[in-house]
């Protein structure tokens, strides 16, 4: 008995020792950083000199800042569009692979390949494809007598361009998970349904979708979180412009903190952003009953 207990203790100590580096790393770079950012949000600090405690002044300013609401709206639009596009496209691609379309093995690799391309490369690639003078897409549209929209210059179009580029690049990510999940559905289920004469659409609706629901919801939640935090593609392609038409919250936060040197106010935006993301994630879990699924 004593030997078993001693073995258990040793196992536990080993386990704790093994996770210790990760705990230290996370503790310093995540929890301490989050704590410091939260503390800083109650101060006015320009990166040098004394920090001045301002209480809730930064939060009051934030909730009266029209640019914050603009960036909030743009974040919602961009994230919403991306999530719908990514999950929709990812599901369709996964279904195509699951149905073994011709060349599915090649497509499986090709569709996922975009996910690993550097954002800078993606920015350069789409920047030249959409170039209003020499871009192939512009030339193609002009050849068929269509007027190309201002992909990156029209304030009403540019956000949709960014959504499209995001969907193009990252559809492979949900596709891989959904495809793996579909592959886990027992073939007998489909065979039984086929005997009952089920149509392809009904098969997807009544069999595939319910059976991959847990994965679908989890991947949707991940995409919501990733999409809310989008910064890189906006920074590379539009820098928030034209004007502020693509200035998402993360970009605004970066500008306030690192361009305007208002670290207190920037931290305040960060705190509100994190709390908002957590709230959305919580509401999503509650609404979809993800835990039970």
């Amino acid at each position, binding site marked *: 008995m004593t030997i078993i207990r001693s073995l258990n203790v040793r196992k536990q100590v080993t386990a704790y020792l093994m996770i210790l580096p990760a705990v230290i790393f996370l503790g310093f770079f995540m929890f301490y950083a989050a704590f410091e950012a939260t503390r800083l949000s109650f101060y*006015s600090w*320009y*990166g*040098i*000199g004394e920090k001045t405690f301002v209480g809730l002044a930064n939060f009051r300013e934030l909730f009266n800042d029209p640019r914050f609401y603009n960036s909030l709206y743009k974040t919602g639009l961009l994230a919403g569009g991306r999530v719908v596009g990514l999950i929709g496209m990812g599901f369709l691609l996964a279904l195509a692979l699951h149905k073994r379309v011709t060349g599915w093995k090649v497509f499986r690799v090709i569709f996922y390949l975009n996910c690993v391309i550097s954002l800078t490369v993606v920015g350069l690639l789409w*920047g030249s494809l*959409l*170039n*209003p*003078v020499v871009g192939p897409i*512009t030339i193609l549209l002009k050849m068929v007598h269509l007027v190309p929209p*201002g*992909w*990156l*210059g*029209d*304030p009403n179009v*540019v956000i949709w361009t960014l959504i499209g580029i995001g969907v193009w690049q990252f559809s492979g990510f949900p596709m891989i998970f959904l495809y793996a999940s579909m592959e886990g559905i027992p073939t007998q289920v489909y065979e039984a349904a086929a005997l009952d004469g089920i149509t392809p659409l009904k098969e997807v609706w009544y069999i595939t979708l319910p059976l991959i629901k847990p994965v679908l919801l989890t991947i949707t939640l991940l995409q919501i979180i990733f999409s809310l935090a989008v910064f890189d593609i906006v920074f590379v392609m*539009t*820098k*928030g*412009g*034209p*004007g*502020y*038409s693509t200035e998402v919250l993360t970009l605004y936060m970066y*500008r306030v903190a*690192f*361009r*305007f*040197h*208002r670290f207190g106010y920037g931290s305040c935006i960060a705190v509100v952003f994190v709390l908002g993301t957590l709230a959305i994630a919580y509401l999503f879990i509650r609404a979809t009953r993800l835990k039970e699924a």
Partner: protein
Amino acid sequence: MSSKQTKAKRSNVLRKLVVFVVSGVLMTTLWALYLAPTVASGEETITVKTIWFAGQHEWFQPLIEIFEKTHPNVKFEVTVMGVVQLEDITIQLMTDPEGPDTLMANYGTWTTVLPVLAEAGFIVNLDPYYEKYGWWEFLPEHLRTHQIRGSMYLFSVGSVFVPVVYYNKAIFREIGADVPTTWEEFYAVCGKLRSEGYEPIALGNRDAYPAYHIYQGIAARTVPMEDYEKVQRFTSAPYKMADYPGFAKAFGILREMEEKKYWATGSAEMAEVDAQQLFFGGKAGMVCSGTWSMNTFREALGDDLGFFIFPPIEKDIPASLTVSLSDEFPLMSSAKPEVRDAVAEFFDLVLSKQGQVVRMELGNMPIRTDFTSAELEKYDPIMLEVMRMFSSGEYPVTDELWTFWNIEAATEIQALGQEVIAGIKTPEQVVEALDKLATRARGF
């Protein structure tokens, strides 16, 4: 142990001793040779850690080489960075004891931070050096506006940078257009270019800053100089743009030119480099830029490159030259007196005729106004003409509008310029937004 063995052992020890002594002597000699230059001159090597903007480094590097030859005890450790990349970490660098001894700064984006850095002792008061080397003689009226509480904390190595309109002489000849001398003529040329199938003005407005340069050039022609400078320098708040209708009018002109299709098609989504390609490729008749890009434009168009400054817009406001000195101000932060002296001596070389000639040979405008026409004739004719305009006294000279604004206003005027061109905001809304930004957060 036999005597033979003892002898052999002794001989072995002796051999080792000889090898040890010879090696020691050799190493000491080599070490002495290595130290000779500094020991002989009685000085230690002074290392100057610098960070330059990529553009400035091109002409600093040849001067560093000249300087190091004449000052063998000084070595420069140079890091080159992009403007935005450097600005994002400047505070950290300046406050780091191991940080650079001198680095470049954009004055316009530092008006709020520099006084704090100066007060906290992170940047060096350069008054003694300005007096010692007589630097006040170069554009003193501009330098004095850059003082912080009556003292200079910046080396001024900027040039007579003037926003200008470049045009393609061949295209102008082809469509029978002359260099416009009034705003109506300027619009007529734009219209003619469009009707002849050319893009009138190549503008890369995705980058935002080109439209800003154009804006401040226009504003200097719609707002009387006295009022322009009140708003520009905030000599005594509250001077607001909204109080002077010319500022909104200038934004209105930017929008009007968009509506009249005088900007190149797709300019809102074009980067500046792409817009320049339109001009270089003979597809656009004009491009609004500045003397800072004279070299690139000359290389692309050769003798077909012409230039003019924006013609007057209002009858009682003459065309002026808006000088951009703001992006070429190295700061000094070293705590070591010998490093400070070396840095100051280097910048004296930069500002000397020898230093400025290196600059001009690379196609950049000089900061010195004491070059004769004969000396300037060796370089681009545009340089000679701009320096003539500058020295003639015919044109009022001022700094760019944003030079003394706080970082938020100075940065955001570019995005707001995009908004007004895109028709998202009216000129009045943009002026109101800028006034809010400019009057907020001035100082800490």
